[in-house]
């Protein structure tokens, strides 16, 4: 119960979303965001990837003149519609018959496609109910990474919620038979939470309930690696930057050959992404309040640092060890018991931790009276040692480190395997941003 009260303010509900984010947008940006043709033009100008447009039917005159020689697979969209309403996804055509196959596998004859276009033109899907335009565009080809999880013909996408160039939360949206190829959750799509750091999926929901597998095929939904994860985040952050809308949902589909493409942007991103990620949005938004981020690249970096790491946490929990990278920030206790920060290199080839002479002097530590015999590729040598107390990622270590002349070397300290028993080494792990600034 106490948890519930604590968590109440961390979750973003529709009221808070509308008051704090949707209503504060300026009208011109909003008018563009709700118009798919204008959005596409804007994104293209910014050099961002979007699916190719085959044709636009603007009015009844266009409708009458249109030659209905449609490709085998395409997506038909109303120019102005919300939440996937009126979006038709077609992925095949019957031989010798003007009949197409919808994602979700039902058939749709040309007459019905025409009827659908007619409904779009009339504005039946547009929120303002004014007449609308129909857009035909190419269907993004399914990436093999998503193939086992996607219902035939569907287009899965990654929804990234971005606030002021910082991706806040992401979700893989998988179409099902019920959603007819569309990835929208309220139409029956599966939402899968994503660890912001690694781009690996975590927990999943179907119709607001947690699920572990795809209902029909029983494929496990956690542990899916999103291809080109960093690009996905960066493209999402760039799309937000160019849209001028502070809180934006960016839907990115990943094409088999062409890579990430912006499928749609949404000025009123849905809130169920919080259930898929089992993590509240408002809390994350509060954590970055007031941050001024210059570039999308920087925003992406911060996002991965700040909101990622669920997968790592899980690993750490199971193994009882902490994950570190090749370079880590180390805090050494000097003679006055102050903590001094140093960047150290992790070296599993060395047995003993080794520290530079200069650094020892700077720290004011005294050499131990003992010496240690070393056998290395250079032969046998005797080195002085020092009693050292330091901590990496919060783990305290007491050791006997050898003293070496490390002047001219990039790192003043290397940590050997003797002191690594509490850690798992991930060579791909990057130093935190604070640490990077120190090296630079």
């Amino acid at each position, binding site marked *: 119960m106490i948890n519930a009260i604590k968590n*109440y303010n961390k*979750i973003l509900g529709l009221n808070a979303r509308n008051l704090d984010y949707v209503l504060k947008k300026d009208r011109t940006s909003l008018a563009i965001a709700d118009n798919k043709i204008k959005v596409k033009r804007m994104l293209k100008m910014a050099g961002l990837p979007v699916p190719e447009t085959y044709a636009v039917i603007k009015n009844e005159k266009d409708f009458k003149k249109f030659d209905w020689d449609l490709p085998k697979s395409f997506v038909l969209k109303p120019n102005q519609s919300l939440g996937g309403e*009126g979006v038709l996804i077609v992925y095949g055509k019957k031989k010798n018959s003007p009949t197409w196959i919808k994602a979700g596998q039902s058939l749709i004859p040309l007459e019905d496609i025409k009827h659908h276009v007619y409904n779009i033109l009339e504005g039946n*899907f547009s929120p303002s109910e004014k007449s609308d335009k129909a857009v035909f565009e190419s269907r993004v080809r399914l990436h093999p990474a998503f193939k086992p999880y996607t219902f035939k013909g569907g287009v899965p996408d990654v929804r990234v919620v971005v606030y002021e160039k910082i991706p806040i939360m992401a979700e893989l949206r998988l179409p099902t038979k019920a959603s007819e190829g569309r990835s929208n959750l309220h139409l029956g799509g599966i939402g899968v939470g994503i660890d912001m750091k690694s781009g690996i999926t975590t927990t999943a929901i179907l119709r607001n309930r947690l699920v572990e597998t795809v209902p029909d095929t029983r494929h496990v939904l956690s542990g899916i690696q999103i291809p080109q994860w960093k690009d996905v985040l960066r493209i999402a952050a760039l799309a937000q930057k160019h849209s001028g809308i502070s809180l934006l949902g960016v839907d990115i589909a990943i094409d088999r050959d062409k890579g990430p493409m912006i499928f749609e942007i949404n000025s009123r991103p849905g809130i169920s992404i919080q259930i898929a990620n089992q993590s509240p949005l408002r809390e994350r938004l509060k954590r970055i309040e007031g941050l001024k981020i210059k570039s999308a690249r920087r925003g992406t970096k911060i996002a991965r640092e700040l909101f990622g790491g669920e997968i790592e946490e899980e690993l750490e929990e199971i193994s009882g060890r902490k994950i570190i990278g090749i370079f880590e920030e180390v805090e050494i206790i000097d003679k006055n018991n102050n903590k001094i920060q140093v960047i150290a290199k992790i070296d599993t080839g060395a047995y003993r931790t080794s520290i530079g002479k200069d650094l020892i002097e700077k720290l004011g530590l005294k050499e131990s009276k003992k010496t240690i015999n070393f056998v290395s590729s250079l032969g046998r040598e005797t080195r002085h040692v020092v009693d050292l107390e330091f901590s990496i990622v919060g783990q305290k270590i007491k050791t006997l480190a050898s003293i070496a002349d490390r002047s001219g070397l990039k790192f003043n300290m290397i940590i050997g395997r003797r002191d690594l028993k509490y850690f798992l080494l991930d060579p791909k792990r990057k130093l935190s941003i604070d640490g990077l600034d120190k090296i630079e």
Partner: protein
Amino acid sequence: MTNIIPYLLSQGVSQEVLAYILLTPLIATFIAFLRQVVGLKSIGVYHPLLLAFAFVGAGLKEGLILFLLIAVLANAITYLVKKFSFLYLPRLTIVVTVTTLALLLTISIIRFSDYNLTLQSYLPIIIILALSDKLVTIQIKKNVRSAIFLISSTIIIALLSYLILNISWLQEISLSYPIIFLITLLIINIFLGRFRGLRINEIWRFKDLLRLSSKD
């Protein structure tokens, strides 16, 4: 200001009319509350409001029967008319005209004679006819599941509003203290307009997240 009501009454405006005028913002507030705080959905704000008044005008049972009749007829006729392509507005008018015709026929067939469908209650029929257009488009736009959900929750909100309209002490209060009554509504709405909390249906939706223990 406080003398407005007695003055209007003395000028021959009926007490009932005045009470309903004053209760209209109350119903609107009630609907806003159900949507912002409880999280119920409805087709617009005016739809349940107008429907509630249609129920008041026609009587609850008659109103519901009329609503269902017109909803079914309008849908069937729209479906038929769709086969020919007409421009939007004339087509709408065609639907309304044919629905009216079908409605008259149906009423006489099921012998509505014991219902009070005299000239006094022509307004409910017109209100429902005007609303029927939206009932048709909502089904094209949404899938069947959400269309049924939206229409039934609109009816439920209208029914609740109808019940409120019939509370006699509310009518009396609004007539006795019209200014205080309206200002109270205004204050309630100012609070509703700034309400950032989770809606009751969202608390239900996020119940697992709410239970989650935070790590830090």
